[in-house]
């Protein structure tokens, strides 16, 4: 059922937005983003009108808008300031800066100013860990916040200066590349890897006839696409987005899956806190990323590609679109690419809108289809039933870069790098307590200790490898190797020196998961909030052994019954820190077995304030011995 057309204040402008997206319901998230740019939020009449134009049920449009953190169904201020709230931002003083901005603007955190001008709040890690603390203003990234920059921002907002007229240096994002290897050093002219892939089929006989006796007896030599796939398989490349699935097998499964159209999706959602390598790759090596996607399209026979760019990186969208246009003009995208008949492939950029779970490949596809970013039931997997139920390859940005290099230099070259089970190199995103935060490219198999030495980390207590969903290790394990067979990593490498409180690190991550749970399944939706509450309770010195046991029980449940990886890994930071940094918890725990979360006497505080009383009988009398120990907590 489609609702009748209602009056809407913005009809002409909304029509233009809808038209720009071909009135396609699959573009709903993009349309909502653009529609929001008109008013700074999505008024009810706007939702109704868009639903009408897209022939969607109104509730469906509202439900999609309600899913994404950067889409607002209530007024959020003409200037919406969000402080990145990763633990590394906090370590760099983000909360003081947030308070400073709120004080300066006379507003309360999380509330819109009465004149509707501005709101200030926090958001999940914005991917600027190497230049923390960072903020977003109406979605535009501003890194390296200092008291001076906070004051400048406050002044610009007070003077109501249009965002596009703010000084450019506020928005300057540094790349901070400190160690290069084959990927970051590669100089690949646009199209070179593709030409090599196309030529490979032709070159193959020559190569078989050479000293490669192990290939003798192979009857028909693979041509073009098949030969390219062969190289990817031979390279043993594994996905760089975290799970480490073998790329060649994924491509092959997609290539052989029945379907009418094949899709290539570049996962540039990069939501894992502490990760920012894809940002740098897209800023410096966009051609290589697109080249890798096109190589994939060639190998699997795909005609349509998407780059799913996280909303936090909106500033990268325009240059990326320009690169796509340039490649189209150079016949590296479009029809009959490089003159190969039937080699048709084009790429469209999609922006996310603030949802970590959309990095999960099936949730990402749902989002691409204009829906709430809820992970699908698997099987079937995207390789057979992906975008619009067609065969789809989803790979990480870095995976596509590596694939382009393999197409150019061959699988044997690549498997000579790294370790046998983790071939090639990996980009690490180093942040936290070290002298030189930034991007470091290493061959797989490099030790944590080596990285710590190179980035100038001292008195290191712990490293969070691969973000909150990864592993937290202490000094005893710094000899471990970064590789799929030891410490797998999607790239994040957050360093904590011995002044840091590892309990607070874990508590920050518990808040992250509770904020980012999509809410589809019971264990994760309720469990991540329970975990957050338990951590807050312990933080408030009201925790006991019972609460620690509760964490373990929730972990068993979330592991066993969550619907996707977010729920499966949500307890990791808590368990890792409990195991390795137990004193950080213990000095906060009550010696009791159990302490209720509800502070009865504390709840009376407001009544006491209202009545102006604070005498003994305005407090609950503590009777037994144990309970009086509770009442006296925190006192010497």
């Amino acid at each position, binding site marked *: 059922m489609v609702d009748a057309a209602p009056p809407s204040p913005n009809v002409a402008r909304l029509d233009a937005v809808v038209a720009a997206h071909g009135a396609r319901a699959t573009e709903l998230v993009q349309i909502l983003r653009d529609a929001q740019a008109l008013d700074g939020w999505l008024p009810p009449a706007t939702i109704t009108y868009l639903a009408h134009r897209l022939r969607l049920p109104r509730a469906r449009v509202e439900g999609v808008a309600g899913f994404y953190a950067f889409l607002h169904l209530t007024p959020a201020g003409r200037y919406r300031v969000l402080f990145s709230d990763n633990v590394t931002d906090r370590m760099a003083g983000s909360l003081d800066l947030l308070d400073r901005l709120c004080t300066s603007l006379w507003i309360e955190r999380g509330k819109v100013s009465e004149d509707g001008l501005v709101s200030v709040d926090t958001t999940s890690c914005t991917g600027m860990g190497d230049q923390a603390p960072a903020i977003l203003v109406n979605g535009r990234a501003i890194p390296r916040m200092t008291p001076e920059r906070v004051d400048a921002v406050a002044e610009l907002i007070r003077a109501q200066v249009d965002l596009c007229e703010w000084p450019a240096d506020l928005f300057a994002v540094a790349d901070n590349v400190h160690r290069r290897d084959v990927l970051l050093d590669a100089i690949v002219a646009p199209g070179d890897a593709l030409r090599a892939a196309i030529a490979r089929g032709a070159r193959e006989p020559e190569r078989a006839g050479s000293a490669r006796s192990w290939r003798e007896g192979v009857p028909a030599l693979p041509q073009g696409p098949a030969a390219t796939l062969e190289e990817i398989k031979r390279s043993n490349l594994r996905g760089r987005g975290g799970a480490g699935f073998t790329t060649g097998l994924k491509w092959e499964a997609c290539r052989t899956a029945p379907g009418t159209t094949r899709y290539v999706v570049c996962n540039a959602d990069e939501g894992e806190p502490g990760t920012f390598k894809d940002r740098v790759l897209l800023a410096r090596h966009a051609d290589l990323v697109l080249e890798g996607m096109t190589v994939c399209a060639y190998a699997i026979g795909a005609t349509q590609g998407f780059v799913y760019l996280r909303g936090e990186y909106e500033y990268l969208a325009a240059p990326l679109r320009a690169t796509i246009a340039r490649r189209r003009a150079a016949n590296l995208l479009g029809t009959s690419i490089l003159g190969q008949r039937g080699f048709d492939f084009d790429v469209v950029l999609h922006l996310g809108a603030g949802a970590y779970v959309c990095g999960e490949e099936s949730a990402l596809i749902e989002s691409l289809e204009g829906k709430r970013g809820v992970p699908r039931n698997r099987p079937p997997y995207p390789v057979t039933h992906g975008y619009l139920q067609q065969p789809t390859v989803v790979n990480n940005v870095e995976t596509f870069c590596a694939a382009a290099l393999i197409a150019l230099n061959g699988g044997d070259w690549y498997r000579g790098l790294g370790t046998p089970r983790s071939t090639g190199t990996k980009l690490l995103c180093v942040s936290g307590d070290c002298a030189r935060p930034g991007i470091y490219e290493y061959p797989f198999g490099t030790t944590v200790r080596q990285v710590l030495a190179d980035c100038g980390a001292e008195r290191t207590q712990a490293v969070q490898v691969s973000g909150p969903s990864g592993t937290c290790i202490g000094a005893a394990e710094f000899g471990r190797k970064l590789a799929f067979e030891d410490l797998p990593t999607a790239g994040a490498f957050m360093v904590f020196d011995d002044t840091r409180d590892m309990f607070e690190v874990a508590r920050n991550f518990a808040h992250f998961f509770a904020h980012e749970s999509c809410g589809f399944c019971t264990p994760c939706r309720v469990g991540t909030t329970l975990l957050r509450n338990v951590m807050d309770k312990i933080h408030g010195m009201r925790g006991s052994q019972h609460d620690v046991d509760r964490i373990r029980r929730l972990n068993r449940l979330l592991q*066993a019954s969550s619907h996707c990886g977010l729920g499966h890994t949500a307890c990791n930071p808590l368990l890792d820190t409990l195991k390795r940094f137990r004193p950080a918890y213990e000095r906060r725990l009550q010696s009791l077995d159990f302490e209720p979360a509800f502070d009865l006497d504390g709840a009376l505080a407001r009544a006491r304030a209202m009545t102006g009383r604070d005498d003994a009988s305005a407090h609950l009398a503590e009777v037994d011995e144990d309970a009086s120990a509770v009442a006296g907590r925190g006192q010497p």
Partner: protein
Amino acid sequence: MTANGAADVFLLDGEPIPFAPGQTVMQAALAAGHYIPHLCFHHDFKPHGSCKVCTVRVDGATTASCTLPAQAGMSVECKADDLEENRRTLVQMLFVEGNHFCPSCEKSGNCLLQAVAYDLGVLDADLDYFFPSRPLDASHPDLLLDFNRCILCELCVRASAEVDGKHVFALSGRGIGKHLIVNAESGRLVDTTVAVTDKAVDVCPVGVIIRKRVGFAVPIGRRRFDARPVSAQALEDAPRRAPPEAAP
């Protein structure tokens, strides 16, 4: 079908369960007269697997049985201490997530959440209550929405879309903020096209979508699950398809 023409079977806690191609473990089990605890599954709708109460173990891996395609020869473990323990916790989670005051609820005795809880031996909530603030929608002359009891099973969403063809209900928000919405700019049920005869009105397993003025026509104590536990009744709802015929 196996080569000799017999129906394909899998094992559920050691018992052979026949199944038709395309059936999930839950569907086949119910059709064969075996109960697997569940909340968001309903035999009239495509399973989506969000409550996770039906989680079982296959080859050491746990997974929701309502969405798991049945395969010949698979061995499914449903009755195990750890799985039962997890089911109890999931039910407790749903109780603390909303506001459930069973003694004063119109649905008490007819409520699937309450019935599954009793059946699993859940006697308390154990977890800390969230006490969310969820205002009622009493705008409609014949229907009341008490969101306090919503377990987000999406059955009304699916029923309204698939059976009634209306999309009266949908979900918005995310994480613990996920909530039910109705298809109206005002946000009020009275402004939707809902009808008391809609499948969506009937399908709610708990006491959210309530018909006005009939709540206590049947007194508590004489209601469906007051008589017999849900595990003894769920099979009565399920389409008892005969085991698949041998293919020609």
